[in-house]
């Protein structure tokens, strides 16, 4: 999909406002899990890395693209596992009683 210059700018701008809005109401107790959660979300770089494998020609480009996918998968999977582990533990005393 080819994205025209100005459309890209609009996407960037709206996404930036969205991110700002989401975080501005977050209580401090969730800062660490949220940082971890947002860390997981940019694991979407995995999609880009996989496509880079498709684009790559020859050994060196393929090797770099391979490393990109390894790193991106680490970002996505690791980010998910630790965030889920942290959020799983948050319990309310009202629920228990």
């Amino acid at each position, binding site marked *: 999909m080819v994205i025209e210059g100005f459309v890209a700018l609009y*996407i960037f701008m709206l*996404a930036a406002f969205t991110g700002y809005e989401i975080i501005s109401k977050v209580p401090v107790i969730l800062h*660490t899990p949220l940082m971890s*959660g947002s860390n997981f979300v940019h694991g979407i*770089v995995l999609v880009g890395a996989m496509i*880079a494998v498709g684009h790559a020609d020859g050994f060196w480009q393929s090797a770099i693209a391979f490393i990109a996918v390894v790193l*991106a998968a680490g970002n*996505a999977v690791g980010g998910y596992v630790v965030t889920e582990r942290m959020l799983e*533990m948050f319990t*309310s005393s009202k629920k228990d009683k």
Partner: protein
Amino acid sequence: METFINLIYLIAAALFILGLKRMSSPVTARDGIVWAGVGMVLATVVTFIHPAGSEDFSRFFLINIAAITIGGGIAWVTGKKVKMTDMPQMIALYNGMGGGAAAAISAVILIQQEYSHDIIIQSMAVLGALIGSMAFSGSLIAYAKLQGIMRKTYRFENQQLVNGLTFLVVILLGINLAISGSDYSMFGLFLFFVLALAFGVMSTAPIGGADMPVVISLYNAFTGLAVGLEGYVLGIPAMMIAGIVVGSAGTLLTQLMAKAMNRPISNVLFSNFGDSSGEAQEVTGSMKEIEASDAAIQMAFASKVLIIPGYGMAVAQAQHKIWEMTKLLQERGVEVKFAIHPVAGRMPGHMNVLLAEAGVPYDIIADLDEINEEFKNTDVALVIGANDVVNPAARNDKNSPIYGMPILNADYASNVIVMKRGKGKGFSGIENHLFFEENTRMLYGDAQASANKLVATIKEL
């Protein structure tokens, strides 16, 4: 086919935003990460039928499957194993991997020179490479520092000048890559990446461990931005949206953290902690010890106890015992709350995670703004392994390096009990005036052993 793939990417982007939104409340946070996770799985699976791989599908499929298995497998095992106290550096590590992936994508694009005559795409690829490389090497340094692999802070004269010059050279090389069409040499490209990686190392190495949370958060935002730029280069709006959402959210989070620590971001990045002017105030008085049994009795007969946990409690793994003590006190009718400073633990919210692990419900945990007024009506403030965050010098001593940092006003409580391993100074090496106050008593010893004694005494009463 392409429409279908793009539709799935669109759904994934929506799930990311909704997931992050749900993560902003403790009640729905758990669902939030699952939603975002579903989005990620959908996007990943559908990418296997992306036209980019159709030319030589078996090669495309095998490389991707192998790489995902290796990267994902290692991350899965380490992520499941990591201790809650080590969480900040693990986040730094995973974040660095994302930045490295973004930089590597750029590397493939720039080597191929496929878009080298489109100056906008080429510029975005260069910028993504620069930011991604810095986030990669910088995060690895942050990981090494918090993990204790790299203990020193590396500083030398004219360091900022050297860093500045390196950055300038990287920028010039980058501009050259962006504007010279396909006329650039592979050596120039190689040098660009080496220096960008070096700059990430050089700018992070001089920053002290106490400031690392802000740095990690900043690199998290950097990676987001780099991913967004790669999304543009590859023409995948879902990557652009997810990346930029994280980029802006991460920037805001960085600001919030820096504010909580009273360390403007420029100070964290460009100055050295503790380089304060003037002599800090002399401390008068002496530290007075207390026995665990006396401390326990004091709390058992109080009507309100506020507990201020610090990283020292987590290191001693005392949080389970402290929660047991809290339950005993609650049974006796004592009102107990946990007062959390924004930077308790290693990063904002880290202490909440550690307490949650021990089973402490989040509704008796209060943060600084909510709780600071209550210290005046508190009988006992119990400080466990926390130091700078309760140092009144931040309020009264203009020459103290921590002057102006918001603190928990533990000294306003009628009695203060400080559980501490020994008489030494804390993480930052600053003398704590609270420990010398008239109403303060020191309970020395390993936090877990002391907590055991407290629990035993309260049980006998």
